């Protein structure tokens, strides 16, 4: 143990630094450098190791997979600002009737949709807390059930694809898997893609949603409504036009990845385009804050302030987009400019015309959104969020460099292979470590620190998709577990003071149990994670 004294010192310094409240990014990069320099005074570290850092930074900058990250962030920010989620929530709960159970179930349903589309847990939880909590309390959902539901369903964004966690995990797991297979002597392994992980996480994610739903139903089945349900008739057309666009958007993004047509980055670009259309159709209501003070829950659907022609042209543009896709699928609309026998068939002309229409619609959306200030603000916020994510990734690569410099990877190797039992013990141990790390670190740090260390050892025998799904579920559980779960902190910041922290901690327990059950099921029965990717990608 004593030869790893520097590693233990590094670990303790990191823990102290993180708890000091200094930005995690500075701690993860600064503390290892300081410890490395200190250790080098005693001959404990070779400083030339650190010169490899720029190459690692360039590796992050030139990683084409990560291009999807800022685009998905932008999509999430736009959806949040356009308040699509709020409107959808409102309409769905009206449709389901005003009972506490109906409202709670619609919150679950909508959070699943938002989770799928944004995947930023902090933002989702704060937003759900602000828009759905007052409504749920008013209707008579007990504080505890409401709090637990918001925290739990707010973290669904990590597991339900397309999720940023899964993209980052995909990057790290596929590198680790290649490394592992080469160590095991397999020099031509099948690559693991982000698409595999998306497909793998889909069923476990839906199982979680279903179990949450069962719990909420059982819990609230007999809870009477505190206020008379809103009986104003609601046309199914209203619900249709609020709910269908986001669903189509998610289907388009997820579908194009799962069918194997588009890369995550390409799908993310399509997602942003679709989001721009949805947002532009609601533009004016998105820009004025006073119509919706934080915490209120508008009773009546807000007036639609976007002019009708704008909404219709956005719908039209979306339809044009889908028409282009179906042309492409039917194979008639392909214009092959490269081939010599270039012909203006009917299909090609149609595709060309549709493309022009699509671009015109998108340009209109961008112009409208830019003039109302929504686009610029969303870009700005997305830049900040991506800056935060990449700061952590760059800092984590500094930490792992120093960790290797101290011989930490050998130590992890010894530790894992020294465990009694087979690779399942190693896996359980890894999951436990990740779970504990989830208390002090965000997922990006953990993914970029732990996977490169344990992956090359574990993935020699373990299915990479199964492993990644377990890690994602595990991280999500960790964020929910009191007293340090990140999700609970985010919720605390959005919840009114009369909901005590103790209530929140108690409220989350049933949901944590559901998580643990799901984790156990996936652990015991890997096909739940691996069946769909195998079916889709072979």
């Amino acid at each position, binding site marked *: 143990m004593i030869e790893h004294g520097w590693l233990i010192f590094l670990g303790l310094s990191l823990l102290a630094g993180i708890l000091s409240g*200094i930005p995690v990014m500075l701690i993860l990069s*600064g503390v290892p450098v300081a410890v490395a320099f200190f250790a080098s005074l005693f001959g404990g570290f070779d400083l030339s190791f650190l010169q490899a850092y720029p190459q690692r930074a360039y590796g992050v*900058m*030139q990683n084409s997979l990560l291009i999807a990250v800022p685009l998905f962030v932008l999509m999430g920010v736009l959806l949040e600002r356009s308040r699509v989620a709020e409107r959808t929530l409102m309409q769905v709960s009206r449709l389901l009737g005003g009972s506490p159970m109906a409202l709670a179930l619609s919150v679950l349903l909508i959070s699943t949709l938002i989770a799928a589309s944004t995947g930023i847990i902090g933002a989702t939880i704060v937003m759900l807390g602000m828009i759905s909590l007052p409504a749920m309390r008013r209707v008579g959902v007990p504080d505890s059930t409401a709090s637990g539901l918001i925290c739990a369903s707010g973290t669904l964004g990590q597991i339900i694809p397309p999720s940023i966690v899964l993209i980052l995990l995909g990057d790290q797991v596929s590198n680790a898997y290649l490394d592992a297979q080469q160590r095991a002597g397999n020099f031509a392994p099948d690559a693991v893609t982000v698409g595999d992980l998306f497909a793998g996480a889909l069923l476990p994610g839906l199982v979680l949603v279903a179990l949450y739903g069962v719990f909420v139903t059982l819990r609230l089945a007999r809870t009477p409504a505190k206020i008379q349900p809103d009986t104003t008739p609601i046309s199914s057309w209203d619900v249709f036009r609020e709910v269908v666009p986001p669903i189509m958007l998610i289907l388009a993004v997820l579908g194009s990845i799962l069918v194997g047509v588009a890369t995550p980055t390409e799908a993310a*670009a399509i997602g942003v385009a679709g989001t721009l259309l949805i947002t532009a159709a609601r533009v004016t209501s998105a820009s004025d804050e006073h119509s919706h003070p934080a915490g209120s829950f508008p009773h009546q659907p807000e007036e639609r302030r976007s002019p009708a022609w704008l909404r219709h042209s956005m719908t039209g543009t979306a339809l044009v987009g889908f028409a282009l896709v179906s042309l492409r699928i039917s194979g008639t609309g392909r214009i092959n*400019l490269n081939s010599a026998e270039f012909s203006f068939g009917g299909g090609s002309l149609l595709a060309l015309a549709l493309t022009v229409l699509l671009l015109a619609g998108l340009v209109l959306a961008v112009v409208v959104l830019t003039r109302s200030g929504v686009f610029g603000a969303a870009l700005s916020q997305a830049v900040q969020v*991506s800056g935060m994510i990449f700061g952590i990734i760059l800092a984590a690569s500094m930490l792992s460099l120093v960790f290797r410099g101290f011989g930490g990877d050998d130590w992890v190797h010894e530790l894992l292979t020294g465990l009694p039992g087979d690779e399942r013990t190693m896996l359980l141990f890894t999951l436990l470590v990740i779970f504990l790390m989830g208390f002090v670190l965000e997922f990006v740090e953990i993914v970029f620190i732990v996977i490169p260390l344990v992956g090359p050892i574990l993935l020699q025998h373990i299915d990479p998709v199964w492993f990644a799904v377990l890690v994602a579920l595990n991280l999500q559980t960790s964020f929910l577990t009191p007293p340090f779960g990140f999700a609970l902190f985010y919720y605390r910041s959005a919840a009114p003071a009369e909901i005590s922290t103790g209530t929140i901690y108690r409220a989350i327990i049933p949901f944590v149990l559901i998580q643990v059950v799901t984790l156990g099921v996936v652990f015991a029965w890997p096909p739940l994670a691996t069946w769909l990717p195998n079916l889709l990608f072979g």
Partner: protein
Amino acid sequence: MNLLIKTASHVHSGTRRACQLLLGMIFIGQLTVVILRYVFGIGFIELQDAVAYSFATLVVLGLPVAQVRDVHVRVDVFRAHQGIRKQARFDQLGIFAFLIPVFGLTIYWVWPDVAYSWSIREASVETGGLPGLYLVKSMLPLACALMILQGLASFVIAGERAKNDD
């Protein structure tokens, strides 16, 4: 001191605008690539490279923007209970002990790479790709310098915050 803060704030609004523009370009470029590829069957390597370059630049230039807006993740289990003065002192410690050394050293480590890249006018590794990769590589030391500038400005501002709290 005042000059430092003013300069830093001007530089910040420039960086922020550049990042907004870059993100917009990534979106437009990537969408164009998608349309060209799936509707017209054309691969456009130069454009894909332009997207990749914009992304590489955004990765590092986003750091100083996030620094100024104070959105880098913190764990505030204890911080939430600290007074303004103590928080400001911890901020100063983070900048002095970690931010400036790490980013300063990164400039020092990356310098030979960048100099070499300039000397051969390094271009994209893709065949038929864009020239000018050496400019993209120069963004890393530039971003480090911007981080240090913003760090110094935050250091001074945090110092004033701590003083006013006395």
